[in-house]
């Protein structure tokens, strides 16, 4: 269709670009590609406005029927124009063209079509649409059963999804920031700006956010007048005032997407999405956690379409979006326009269109009588006004070419056009008021849902509160801002509300056009039509939440922002209920979809969790030590030497060295807790199952902690340094939980006790020095004043000493390996140096460093329990420590540990195992089955917890829990390991494989 004769001359390269108006920078032209073709636009454009400037409306294909779809909106509510942006690692699916800002070189590709947007083979789905109605798949694809996974589902999955995720890791950075403020203003339209001004002028801290690149909201979209000057000037002045205040933060391109408890709001800032690439070291997006004492929600409203036949034809657009394109972007999206409205605000679109030189074919107003506003517009512009008329159907395929209008008399007329501007009224953006469970409240006069009960400390300003006119938005915003700071104790200030029009918000509801032909879409992206709603109703899915789930209405990337209210209104109509009776579906965060990368921030790759490095880490790496993750720690697991073929080879050598000479191992990761106070002894007695009262000063003892349910929780040593001074160790894995548990006991269970609990885990670098030569080695380190002879420093002795010429140290004669052994602790800053010293000193004894592998082997050889045995389900009796359990005192776990199930003799208990064929390998996780019976669950007698190749025995050994274990010593059972194809005969033995008499520890 021809451009109207009176239209001003335009740039031939951007045929729909107006010669002036809007916030775009016409002084610069930038290029972008869409489906491989190059187009031009200007900075300040979105991809959508640039496409429209180039005369392109067809932007994508719908999800199910692959119908051609155009740009409908100018904001984050867009259901249709979803593009893949960028390529390669930065490929970004489902990006709304109406939100994405244009940059030079931007590459955009349409989605969900093959081979091309213009010709999409899958559009045959459209022909099958009589079958593909809501919920059809629940009724089909069941026969034959096997075919679902082999045939039907793969086919469905091939059709699933829109864009494609990148194939490789996202190369961009993301970061998170926490901000605290007195007042958070959400939305930078007229209401939000007034609220921010009012709050800021009182001196309070203010954060104002808007999801768009520019502030101003609809005042910019509508090219409104404020205080007699163009709104954009007023907005600029307001921005400048705010920016000049040190306690005001303005965040553009930032959408608040969630309201959380305690005044916490989450927002996403698109820091660099408008750039080809983020600047070096700078993030692509930033997640804001905003903690606000008060929040003013000034999020405006979103326009909704009217449901009529083939209302999804490209070129059918929201009226407010048409105005945005004209006024914000300087683009007129069509030349011959039909405006279809049921409200006065929508009718105003005519004025903008005429001003931009478009030909308004007709104003179709469903209301029987022209309102005052409509009459005024009609007489001012002289356009054709059709009152009491409705558009029943759009025609055209890839672009609308006209509409059928049913006039007040019922006559059908065809009007030719290339753009239909539709307004069905406005839905306040209330989502952030419902995230904490607030229920929206229907307003009959405005025909929309307004916020109901608000989250604590939130208030409203502007059209989100139903104050639809610019005048009301400004004054409502000002009032909200002022009252927010007043509640925070600021002195009341008077703020002059600028002059602006109090436009009419008159509306007469029209949700869908009756007796329309063609398909009438309610949810564009998910292809839900009014017929699907009828079907859902017919099948009993009347509750709105059922309707949503059955038809998938409102579940697409736009979350039904243009669809939900229309849908439930149609449901209300069919079921003869009111809209409030019908209800609305619950909105959930995020308000706009948020990149997962941004929610992760810094915490990905190696930075997913912090890494803890033990004191000898650097030295260990120099020695070629292989480190493994142990919780957050990186611990050396073995120190391979040339010629050793694998970890096992190395571990054997390390064990042999310890057992024959001496080895050194970093055990600093063990939890260390200092316990002092006059009641320290009583306290420890209550948290350990065994008796500690008798522990003499200068001695250490092994102890076990239970949970209150009687299960073994942790074990370690308790050393006594003074009358009221103990020093305990916990396992590495439980260090944090054990401390927490002790604090629970001291603060909550027994606060009357005088006990102080202080963690000292990181203060001490602690090394096990183990083996027959350990004392000789230490002798070279320990200052001569200290007697560490077997007589002077026997097994289980502890002492405060000095080493290497006066460095304070602690020496513990403890052994996990079963050898004569010590643990020596020095302040952690000397940890590296001490390790080097021990290493040097050990050379003459043939010392080795050993890691967690050898440590594990030796403790298994000695039958000491560790993580695999402390699996949260075992009792002291299960692990053979029943004898340690005190019968005389109260302690955590005593009472429930005595329940029948906990003492049941049938519980598997700890024994040792060795393979009958000594060359066989054992694996932990294998289950025990008696010989001669079937390997079934009934015959499952227990499981292997820990295994090791024992160099001392020359074969594999294991520990495990076996039913009636101790009475089955000597029996041969199967260690059955089907997941690794293992089935090994093992002999049940005592769980000690080295030095059964325990003489070596004493030297």
């Amino acid at each position, binding site marked *: 269709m021809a451009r109207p004769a009176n239209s001003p001359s335009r740039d031939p390269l951007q045929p729909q670009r107006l010669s002036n108006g809007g916030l775009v920078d016409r002084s610069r032209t930038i290029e972008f590609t869409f489906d491989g073709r190059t187009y031009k636009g200007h900075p300040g454009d979105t991809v959508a406005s640039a496409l429209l400037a180039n005369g392109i409306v067809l932007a994508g294909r719908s999800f199910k029927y692959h119908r051609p779809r155009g740009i409908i909106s100018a904001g984050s509510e867009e259901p249709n124009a979803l593009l893949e942006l960028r390529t390669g690692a930065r490929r970004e699916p489902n990006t709304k063209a109406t939100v994405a800002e244009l940059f030079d070189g931007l590459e955009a590709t349409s989605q969900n079509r093959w081979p091309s947007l213009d010709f999409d083979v899958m559009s045959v789905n459209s022909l099958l649409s009589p079958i593909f109605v809501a919920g059809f798949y629940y009724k089909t694809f069941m026969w034959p059963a096997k075919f679902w996974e082999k045939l039907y589902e793969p086919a469905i999955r091939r059709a699933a999804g829109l864009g494609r995720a990148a194939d490789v890791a996202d190369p961009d950075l993301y970061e998170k920031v926490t901000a605290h403020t007195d007042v958070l203003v959400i939305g930078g339209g007229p209401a939000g700006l007034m609220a921010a001004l009012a709050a800021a002028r009182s001196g309070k801290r203010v954060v104002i956010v808007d999801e768009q690149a520019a502030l101003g909201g609809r005042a910019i979209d509508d090219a409104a007048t404020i205080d007699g000057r163009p709104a954009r000037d007023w907005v600029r002045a307001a921005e400048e005032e705010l920016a000049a205040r040190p306690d005001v933060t303005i965040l553009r391109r930032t959408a608040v997407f969630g309201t*959380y*408890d305690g005044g*916490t709001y989450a927002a996403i800032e698109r820091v660099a999405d408008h750039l080809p690439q983020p600047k070096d070291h700078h993030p692509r997006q930033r997640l804001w956690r905003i903690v606000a004492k008060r929040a003013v929600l000034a999020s405006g409203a979103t326009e909704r379409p009217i449901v009529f036949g083939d209302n999804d034809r490209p070129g059918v657009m929201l009226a407010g979006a048409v105005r945005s394109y004209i006024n914000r972007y300087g683009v007129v999206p069509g030349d011959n326009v039909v405006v279809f409205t049921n409200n006065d605000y929508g009718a105003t679109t005519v004025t903008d269109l005429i001003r931009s030189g478009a030909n308004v074919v007709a104003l179709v107003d469903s209301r029987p009588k022209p309102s005052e506003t409509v009459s005024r517009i009609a007489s001012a512009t002289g356009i054709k006004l059709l009152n009491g008329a409705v558009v029943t159907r759009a025609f055209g395929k890839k672009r609308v070419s006209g509409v059928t209008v049913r006039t007040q008399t019922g006559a059908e007329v065809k009007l030719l056009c290339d753009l239909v501007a539709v307004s069905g009224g406005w839905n306040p953006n209330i989502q952030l008021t419902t995230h904490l469970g607030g229920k929206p409240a229907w307003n009959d006069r405005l025909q929309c849902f307004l916020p109901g009960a608000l989250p604590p400390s939130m208030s409203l300003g502007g059209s989100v509160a139903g104050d639809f006119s610019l005048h009301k938005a400004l004054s409502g915003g000002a009032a909200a801002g002022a009252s927010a700071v007043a509640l925070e104790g600021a002195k009341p200030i008077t703020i002059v509300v600028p002059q602006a029009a109090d436009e009419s918000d008159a509306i007469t509801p029209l949700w869908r056009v009756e007796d329309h032909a063609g398909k009438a879409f309610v949810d564009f992206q998910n292809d839900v039509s009014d017929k699907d709603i009828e079907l859902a109703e017919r099948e009993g899915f009347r509750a709105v939440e059922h309707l949503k789930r059955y038809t998938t209405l409102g579940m697409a990337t736009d979350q039904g922002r243009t669809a939900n209210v229309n849908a439930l209104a149609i449901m209300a109509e069919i079921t003869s209920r009111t809209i409030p009776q019908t209800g609305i579906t619950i909105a959930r965060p995020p308000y706009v979809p948020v990149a997962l990368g941004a929610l992760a921030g810094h915490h990905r790759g190696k930075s997913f969790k912090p890494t803890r490095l033990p004191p000898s880490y650097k030295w260990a790496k120099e020695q070629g030590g292989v480190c493994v993750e142990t919780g957050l720690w990186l611990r050396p697991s073995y120190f391979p030497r040339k010629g050793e073929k694998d970890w096992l080879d190395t571990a054997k050598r390390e064990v042999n060295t310890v057992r024959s000479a001496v080895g050194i191992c970093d055990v600093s990761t063990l939890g260390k807790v200092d316990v002092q106070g006059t009641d320290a002894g009583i306290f420890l007695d209550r948290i350990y199952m065994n008796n500690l009262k008798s522990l003499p000063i200068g001695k250490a003892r092994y102890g076990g902690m239970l949970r209150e349910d009687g299960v073994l929780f942790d074990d370690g040593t308790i050393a006594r340094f003074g009358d009221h001074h103990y020093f305990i160790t916990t396992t590495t894995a439980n260090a944090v939980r054990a401390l*927490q548990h002790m604090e629970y006991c001291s603060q909550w269970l027994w*606060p009357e006790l005088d006990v102080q609990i202080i963690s000292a885990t990181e203060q001490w670098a602690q090394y096990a020095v183990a083996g027959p030569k350990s004392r000789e080695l230490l002798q070279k380190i320990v200052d001569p004043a200290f007697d560490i002879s077997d007589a002077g420093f026997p097994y289980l002795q502890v002492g405060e000493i000095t080493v290497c010429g006066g460095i304070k140290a602690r020496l513990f004669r403890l052994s996990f390996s079963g050898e004569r052994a010590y643990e020596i602790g020095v302040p952690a800053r000397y940890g590296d140096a001490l390790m080097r010293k021990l290493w040097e000193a050990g050379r003459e004894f043939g010392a080795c460093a050993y890691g967690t592998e050898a440590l594990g082997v030796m403790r298994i050889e000695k039958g000491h329990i560790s993580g695999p045995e402390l699996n949260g389900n075992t009792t002291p009796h299960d692990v053979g420590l029943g004898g340690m359990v005190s019968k005389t005192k109260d302690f955590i776990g005593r*009472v*429930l540990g005595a329940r029948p199930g906990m003492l049941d003799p049938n519980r598997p208990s700890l024994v040792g195992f060795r393979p009958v064929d000594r060359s066989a390998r054992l694996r932990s996780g294998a289950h025990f089955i008696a010989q001669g019976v079937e390997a079934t669950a009934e015959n499952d007698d227990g499981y292997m917890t820990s295994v090791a190749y024992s160099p001392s025995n020359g074969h594999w050994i294991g520990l495990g829990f076996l039913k009636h274990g101790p009475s089955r010593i000597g029996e041969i059972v199967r260690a059955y390991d089907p997941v690794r194809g293992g089935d090994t005969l093992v002999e049940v033995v005592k769980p000690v494989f080295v030095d059964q008499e325990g003489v070596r520890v004493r030297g």
Partner: protein
Amino acid sequence: MRIACPYCGERSLDEYLYSGDATVRRPDFASPTAQADFVKYVYERKNSPGQHRELWYHAAGCHAWLVVTRDVSTHIITAVEPAKDVALGTASSMKDTA
């Protein structure tokens, strides 16, 4: 959710650990009904909607155990007291009712 630690001030949820009902107290191990008492104490919970007195641990902060009064249907917190004071009966809110 934000909890106002009486010592540290208001902090976000991620600094705290929740640890259950604060209205149950550890029974006497020597009582003849000890086992039944402990079963109740360890396992049985009122768990009703509305106000809940519960234990939290300021794990990433001062390590204080706290008794928090919170509406579990709205997550609105009305009181936070040191567990130590509650246990000793010296918490300010308890003095009021004592």
